[in-house]
């Protein structure tokens, strides 16, 4: 089997990329989705707030997905459900597995849109026993919203990622007592609007610089020990207290799901956990593009859609032979105050979006793009900057046309 553009994953990133690729003129575009429906994580996000930027409306997750799925059908994009990509080669061949059997597909361009996974109890090395009652926030969201299954009666939420905040409110609304949200950092990891709408509006306490240091219970969870932490995130002695609970929700970070990319040989950037990309969102492998949460963890689906449309567009252009991989390029590196920025390499041939996150919350600062001579090419003021809020700057090609090296920093 051969296809012009194959998109791996039918979540928000995959949908937007596939529609865009098709509109850009790719003859056949195929989405491979492992779930039994399109939409990905949006299907379990029954809260609203999706699409505020894009559609100027507060949609629920499924509603947001529906708008894309309708366009996908209208464009005639082909998709396979209940089908897993088990292997991706650097030559853009894919191996697929489904109830119908195994299949090999040759693609002219591939768009990686596999999303991300949640960090677990093991990944954060949470000490203690192994009782039942410990869930990642996304697991609980799936069980409650899609399977009508209630996970517990008295919950502690560890970590203040957005899904954790959303689920703290959700549990409360379903009659579960929510003792509080505990965050090891001195500031929340989720969006300010979620802190307000999910915690403050419902009187759920948020404890900063505090973490769970041990879980208890040999069968079902019986409680957790929490403690304050010092600036190096080490638990402070004599601050430990025991909180009885039967449920612990973890919202301690998301990890781009790049196992397929890694096996294919795509270069992964340690700071984002996603592929290193250029200004066409092409990875280090020719004709393989990446977008959405597999590239960098986003906080707004609207940005995922926007980014993925570009990946789809460039995927289509590559498949038509209209896009060459970067020959000479200019690197952009994160400077003071910046945790990461993306793309890491640019051609200086086209405009692009620069995505970045700052290291810590700040007020009244500027984000500045400098060239190799410290000359300011772009600067933008922000009354507030927060690591939870991704910054996206449009960079016009004429601004950087002569730069040999670029650095983005906070001033």
């Amino acid at each position, binding site marked *: 089997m051969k296809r012009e553009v194959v998109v791996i994953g039918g979540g928000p990133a995959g949908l937007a990329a596939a529609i865009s690729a098709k509109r850009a003129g790719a003859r056949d575009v195929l989405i491979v989705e492992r779930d039994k429906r399109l939409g990905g994580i949006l299907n379990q996000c029954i809260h609203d707030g999706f699409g505020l930027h894009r559609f100027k409306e507060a949609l629920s997750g499924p509603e947001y997905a529906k708008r894309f799925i309708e366009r996908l059908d209208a464009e005639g994009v082909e998709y396979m459900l209940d089908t897993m990509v*088990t292997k991706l080669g650097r030559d853009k061949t894919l191996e697929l597995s489904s109830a119908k059997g195994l299949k090999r597909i040759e693609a002219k361009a591939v768009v990686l849109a596999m999303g991300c996974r949640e960090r677990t109890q093991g990944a954060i090395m949470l000490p203690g026993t*192994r*009782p039942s009652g410990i869930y990642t926030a996304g*697991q609980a969201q799936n069980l409650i919203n899609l399977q009508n299954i209630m996970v517990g009666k008295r919950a502690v939420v560890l970590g203040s990622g957005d899904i954790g905040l959303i689920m703290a409110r959700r549990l409360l609304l379903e009659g579960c007592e929510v003792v509080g949200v505990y965050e090891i950092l001195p500031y929340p990891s989720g969006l300010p609007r979620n802190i307000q709408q999910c915690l403050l509006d419902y009187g759920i306490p948020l404890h900063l610089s505090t973490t769970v240091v041990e879980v208890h219970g040999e069968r079902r969870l019986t409680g957790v020990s929490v403690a304050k932490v010092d600036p190096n995130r080490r638990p402070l002695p004599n601050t430990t207290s025991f909180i009885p609970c039967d449920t612990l929700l973890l919202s301690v970070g998301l990890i781009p799901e790049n196992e397929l990319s890694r096996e294919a040989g795509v270069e992964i950037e340690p700071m984002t956990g996603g592929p290193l990309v250029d200004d066409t969102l092409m990875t280090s492998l020719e004709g393989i593009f990446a977008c959405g949460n597999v590239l960098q963890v986003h906080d707004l689906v609207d940005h995922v859609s926007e980014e993925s449309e570009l990946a789809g567009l460039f995927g289509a252009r590559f498949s038509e032979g209209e896009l060459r991989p970067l020959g000479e390029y200019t690197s952009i590196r994160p400077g003071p105050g910046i945790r990461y920025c993306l793309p890491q390499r640019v051609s200086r041939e086209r405009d692009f979006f620069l995505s970045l996150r700052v290291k810590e919350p700040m007020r009244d600062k500027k984000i500045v793009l400098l060239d190799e001579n410290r000359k300011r090419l772009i600067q933008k003021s922000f009354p507030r900057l927060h690591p939870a809020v991704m910054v996206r700057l449009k960079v016009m090609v004429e601004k950087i046309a002569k730069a040999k090296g670029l650095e983005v920093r906070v001033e």
Partner: protein
Amino acid sequence: MDQGTRYDVLIIGAGVVGNAIARELSKYKLKIGVLEKELDVGMGTSSRNSGVIHSGIHYKPGTLRAKLNVLGNSMFERLCRELKVKMSYIGKLTVAQEDSEIKSLYELKEQGEANGVPGLQILKRDEMEKLQPGVGGILALYSPSTGIVCPYTFTIRLAESAFRNGVSFWLGKKVVAIEKRFDTFLVKTQDGETFTSRVLINSAGLYSDQICRLLGIEEYKIYPCRGEYLILDKRLGHHLKTLVYPAPHHGKAGLGIHLTKTVDGNILIGPSNEYVNSPEEYATTREIMEVLLKEGKELLPDLETSDVIRSFCGLRAKQTPPEVGGFRDFVIEHRKEIKGFINLLGIESPGLTSAPAIALTVKDLLEEVLTLEEREDFLSELPGFTGYFSELSYEEKMDLISKEKDYGQIVCRCEGITKKEVIDAIQNPLGVKTLSSLRYRARVMMGRCQGGFCLPRIVEILTKEFGFRPEDFLLHREGSYLFTGNVR
């Protein structure tokens, strides 16, 4: 239950030792039962260890540990073939870091040879480097017969093979009282049932001293000694071509923190070595995790903190108290004063390796009480294939999917486990229905996302296809319920 039946042999404890005995004895015309306090077999030390098939260099010549280790090691290959269990003789380097440790390597070699360990060699740096690129140290003892096996798969398959040959497994049956009336043992379980048998075998591991006490045997005490581990992502598995252990240090109870490759390609860092107060103390600790991570990073410079996917611990059933330390030999005895009571106690390392040989020893002891007659219909082979679907070739996979479409549906993306494998696991012959039983049988929820993706899918399969209600889901033990009911 068949209350009226009297067993010929009752085995207390379905760990690797109990199950190996059950399977060995199922070759004879005997009525055999196994009592296990947990809801699945192998829930204690048998599933919580390094999964190493030891060569036998570490034990004093003439001890049971030496003899049974070497014999057990030689039995593993055939047994794993019959039971469809993955194993591999990947060998081991015991490495001296400094001159003062060299002597102990030669002593180990001599001891190993006295024990009958095959193929031992002292290797210099360049030869060490060939076996394990990047290995530290100045000299090493190489033992080619050291192997790896998945300890819980092995334990489960022993039980399934025994079951296939007629052994009854009674799970969730904690023994609380034992009485001997004439030539019959009456064994009472916590739920009020009584089992009767002519022969009683104590393979209760960490609880074996408690079982002894129920029979008035007071001379033994088990001191649980914890070993904590970290499990690392498969990303790093290729680094380890063979096992690498530090040269022995005098007076230490374990074999030192080391890296062990599992048959599935993960790496274990551990085990630590601390006495604890109770055989139920399975909590991991921040202190030890930090030590393991630090030592791990020294042994494997490529290791990132984010490579840790889980921590766990197991308990060694030691006979020596903390102030004494070291090892004592296995106890494997027929208590003549309580005729028909076969007592196994203190089976710590190398218990996994020795299990098949311990079973033979027990068979010999049994002949002091019963006349054994071989069955002609013993089934040595388990059906199915070794390993996981994801490990088969493209053609084998295609063939299986064409016969059974559920092989095409991948439920666990990290490990590539299919819906058919999950369904087979839930329909396991022993009838275990906990989620941890699926984890141990089908390897779901074992990968880097630890069930983040597959747990909801498994819940859906069990709900839709097996009629589970939310209240029916248990993680591992009685009372470890997952859900409190429907949302509405």
